[in-house]
């Protein structure tokens, strides 16, 4: 799929990728001279389509891997995510997305996000008698839509890889063609992240909450 490889072990959390992503997709271009500040974009900047978190076990890069047989596509109840064979990418149709969180539940890389702004809506079409006044003005919150890496479709090359100083994100991928990826996926191995992992593609570390820890690690 998409020619981008991810190696979390090389990430130092500088955040340039997020700034480039946010600017490239929705803001000024990276050539405009704006530099990342303290490793992250200013608050009022548009949200990036990838996310870096520094955790006790190391950096975690949440970015779409454009899987060959993506669990998000299987789980999408709205037909909003599809594998685009021509563009070699997993793409989202925002007009179909209903923000149901299914893809968020499925993606082992934590790539899909749903942002919630102050989105409220006054229901239309109902009789006034049926309108409730629980919130004062009868408005109800509205779902957001999912956002994730689009592979910089309109920008020619993945901007995050262009600005990454450590090689954690690299353009050029792993050199495997789509067909070869598919075979490898079927056989239970798939390439990404500068190496191979199980095609039930999980994270490499246990997640931690509170004090309790499950040190799942790698088995098998």
């Amino acid at each position, binding site marked *: 799929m998409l020619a981008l490889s991810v190696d979390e072990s090389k990430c130092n959390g500088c955040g340039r990728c997020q700034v480039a992503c946010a600017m490239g997709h929705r803001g000024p271009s990276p050539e405009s001279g704006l530099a990342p500040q303290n490793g992250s974009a200013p608050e009022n900047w548009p949200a990036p389509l990838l996310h870096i978190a520094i955790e006790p076990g190391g950096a975690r890069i949440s970015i779409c891997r454009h899987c060959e047989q993506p669990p998000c596509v*299987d789980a999408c109840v709205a037909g909003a995510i599809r594998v685009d064979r021509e563009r070699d990418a997993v793409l989202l149709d925002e007009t179909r997305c209903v923000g*149901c969180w299914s893809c*968020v*539940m499925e993606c*082992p890389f934590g790539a899909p996000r749903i942002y919630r702004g102050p989105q409220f809506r006054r229901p239309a079409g109902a009789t006034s008698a049926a309108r409730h*006044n629980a919130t004062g003005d009868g408005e109800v*919150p509205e779902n957001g839509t999912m956002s994730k890496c689009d592979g910089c479709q309109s920008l020619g090359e993945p901007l995050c890889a262009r600005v990454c100083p450590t090689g954690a994100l690299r353009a050029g991928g792993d050199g495997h063609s789509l067909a070869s990826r598919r075979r490898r996926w079927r056989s239970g191995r798939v390439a990404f992240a500068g190496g191979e992992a199980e095609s039930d*593609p999980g994270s490499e570390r246990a997640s931690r909450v509170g004090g*309790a820890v499950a040190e799942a690690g790698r088995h098998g």
Partner: protein
Amino acid sequence: MAKFVIIGASAAGTAAIREIRALDREGDITLISEENHRPYSKVLLTQYIAGRVPFQNLFLDDEDFFSRMKVNAVMGTKAVRIDPDRRTVELENGRLVPYERLLLATGGAPSISGDLGQDPDVTGLRTISDAEAIKRRALEGAAIAISGGGLVGIKLACGLREAGATPELIVSSPHILSQVADDEAAILAERQLEMYGVRVRTGVDVKGVLRGPGGLEGISLSDGGTLPCRMLAVCKGVKPNSGPVSNHLPAWRGVRVDARMRTGLPGVFAAGDVAETQDLTSGEFRVLAIWPHAVAQGRIAGRNMAGRPENYAGSLPRNALEILGLPFISMGAIHVPAKGGDWDVAIERGPGTYRKLIYRRGRLVGAVLVGSVLEAGRLQAEIRRSAHFSPAV
């Protein structure tokens, strides 16, 4: 030339069709569907009621899906029974359809108890026509009560609220979401519903209907009270549509299948909401009726039907929903047994958020996330790894 017959045109059926056609370009595929619509997403029906999904977006494939897949579609016709000796499917009009490989992807039907099911103003929510009926009444301003505090009931309540109605939710359990959440998470969800105008009544059940000359006037409740309403939507689970094979297979809950989606009858496979598969967290065989299972099972069934053996990875119960602005995801084993000596939980609470991770023998086996759910996918991967290395109990 192989003869494939698929009964049911929803997630499992269409996934199987795609897979079979990808592997066998010439094989003869016949689809039998009780409904007259081309394949659509049942899960979107509450969003359609909400007014957020236009009618045409209920359909997930383009109009020429059947012709592209070279499927002979028999629409609006019910498959009544199969004859496993002659390998035929009998349709309600008496026609016999021969098969070599058959997929039962018939899904489920709303479970509506006894007398309630006879009332014209009582409905389930499973099909486009159910949704159309509910939506029409909502837009007329009719008061609608919902029986059932599970996923469908809550999603319907949210959808109706978004459409401007003020539904009431009648839940027999002490809390909503009793199958998939603990009390604390459920209470957060209940508060959210109430805050935005959905009334939730717990610990009470619908006893009967009160009819007047103009139709339904209300329902009577198990606590002796009554609730005025013009329509009642019953969302208390679904029962598998195992009718066509019920003379041949024990289908108490669903049709049990092996890892290749085989039913035990020669050449007969099952997938989706009608199939009983192994729950990775407990080892038990259950109907785990969620969309991603239906798609995965349909695909696996299709591969095996087309002669490419592949095993199903097993089912992991999980659900995601949005409750009027509050995201909720639960996965895996949620309820810690009373004598759960080797079980452990970790709970984190924040403003508007609740996260509970459930461990067994130090391994993550379940999670309930409210308000803050972005890590759910990684947690699911971890739960799957745990399940993979735990012996079925």
